[in-house]
């Protein structure tokens, strides 16, 4: 396998973007990444989108991407695995380049969610759960994560306040991210006083419905060094992918995201690193409890101590391992197919030293973790800046 580098990144702002269509978002973001890489053509395109059929009545996004980017004829692939669709597209591009089949490959994750009513958007998202045996009985996504939260609180003594602190941190981080949907500070009292959705989760424990797109351009490392060294080169050193059961009730331990454990182990093994080597991470905080479970699943703390780690401030920007410096899904927004790619962009910007007001002091090695459904799939990506210490 050839080594792979990220040579360009670009994204749209995240939010309720009434004046932009699905294809506008897809193209705007793709062009930004291609401009950043200084390429005007690519050998292949990978599009990550969860449910453009249900949100926009439009499938076949691969063809739309090539067509509206003015690249008819270029092979394009659309990838779907619920909320990890973006990371899955990135994996497709990584393998395409690593294998030697293609050289310059564009990855765009996109979701246009506000062209349908909130009810329809929620119904579309629900298809990431087991429709026949969860959805039929009236379960919702906040409901599934609420059941994880209640089990975690009962088993480990995780507190309501610890959940709130995840939202408080991620909202504070988003204040410094110009692309974030919710640039507003929240207090623990505000989280706990917001409307209850599914006990114990309030609306401020939940990520929002968002429009947006995010893109990266990848190339073989050697080619990147030769032709695309206008930015600090960022190398893909680890990529792990795993599945979990589709229904939450089939999970042996309801408090453990076993797909994240496995994806993390595979990514660490490929990188030859462990959790202690990671400088910062973007975790999939679709609900506050998810970030707590993921801290544990990736070995950043012991099992059951994700809440405690958060309460100790270890995940703050100046803590032991800054988590979701971008604002996370919670405050940056969660345009489902774009989310995984946007996590990778945050790693690249931090590693390059281009993250502006939210730049971390130590950002040589970053980890992004994307999660599908209630834990049915996960991809973990580890990136390193060339010339970094490892």
């Amino acid at each position, binding site marked *: 396998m050839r080594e792979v580098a990220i040579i360009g990144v670009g994204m749209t702002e995240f939010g309720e973007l009434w004046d932009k269509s699905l294809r506008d978002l897809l193209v705007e973001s793709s062009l930004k990444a291609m401009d950043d890489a200084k390429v005007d053509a690519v050998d292949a395109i990978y599009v990550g989108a969860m449910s453009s059929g249900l949100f926009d009545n439009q499938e076949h996004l691969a063809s739309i991407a090539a067509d509206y980017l003015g690249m008819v004829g270029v092979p394009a692939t659309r990838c779907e695995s619920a909320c990890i669709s973006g990371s899955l597209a990135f994996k497709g591009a990584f393998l395409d380049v690593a294998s030697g089949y293609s050289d310059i490959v564009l990855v765009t994750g996109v979701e246009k969610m506000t062209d349908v009513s909130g009810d329809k958007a929620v119904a579309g998202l629900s298809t990431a759960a087991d429709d026949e045996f969860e959805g*039929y009985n009236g379960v919702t996504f906040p409901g599934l994560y609420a059941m994880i939260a209640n*089990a975690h609180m009962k088993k480990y003594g995780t507190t309501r306040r610890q959940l709130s602190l995840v939202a408080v941190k991620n909202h504070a981080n988003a204040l410094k991210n110009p692309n974030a949907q919710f640039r507003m500070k929240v207090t623990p009292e505000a989280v706990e006083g917001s409307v209850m959705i*599914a006990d114990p989760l309030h609306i401020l424990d939940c990520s929002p419905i968002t429009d947006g797109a995010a893109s990266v351009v990848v190339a073989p490392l050697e080619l990147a060094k030769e032709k695309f060294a206008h930015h600090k080169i960022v190398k893909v050193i680890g990529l792990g992918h795993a599945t979990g059961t589709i229904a939450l009730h089939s999970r042996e331990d309801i408090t453990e995201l076993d797909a994240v454990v496995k994806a993390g182990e595979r990514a660490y093994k490929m990188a030859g690193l462990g959790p202690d080597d990671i400088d910062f991470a973007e975790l999939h905080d679709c609900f506050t409890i998810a970030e707590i479970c993921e801290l544990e699943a990736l070995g950043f703390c012991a099992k059951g101590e994700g809440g405690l780690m958060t309460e100790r401030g270890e995940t703050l920007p100046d803590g032991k391992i800054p988590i979701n410096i971008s604002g996370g899904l919670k405050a940056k927004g969660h345009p489902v197919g774009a989310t995984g790619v946007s996590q990778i962009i945050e790693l690249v910007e931090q590693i390059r030293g281009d993250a502006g007001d939210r730049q971390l002091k130590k950002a040589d090695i970053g980890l992004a973790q994307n999660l599908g459904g209630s834990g049915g799939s996960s991809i973990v990506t580890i990136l390193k800046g060339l010339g970094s210490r490892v």
Partner: protein
Amino acid sequence: MDPQKYWRQIPARYRLEAYKCKNCGKVFFPKRLICDNCKSREFVKAEHSDKGKLLTYTVIRTGPADFQDQTPYVIGVVESENGARLTAQIADVEPENVAIGMKLRMAFRKINKTGDAGVIMYGYKAVPEFE
């Protein structure tokens, strides 16, 4: 509602039909074509024990559009005595009286209604089991 999809699930939803792996004895609900434990493809029909306990739950305050008129309702993961698990509404109990570990019994209930005609969809819910 698509009738063929609904009818296909009647054995599971009305009668809680579970399947037991002929080789290793693991019980599955709903049925599967291959055992995830021993890879055997032979199963025998088994009764899903109608008694179980609550592993975790939540109270849904904001539901899907077609369940909104039922809110607030309790939903949870129930583990039956033979080890099979399912997600079901917990009925006949006030939300504040629900607790992890409580004993439950499965019951045949109305789940929802659908379409302009309000066709009723049935299935299982769990109710408290009093000793």
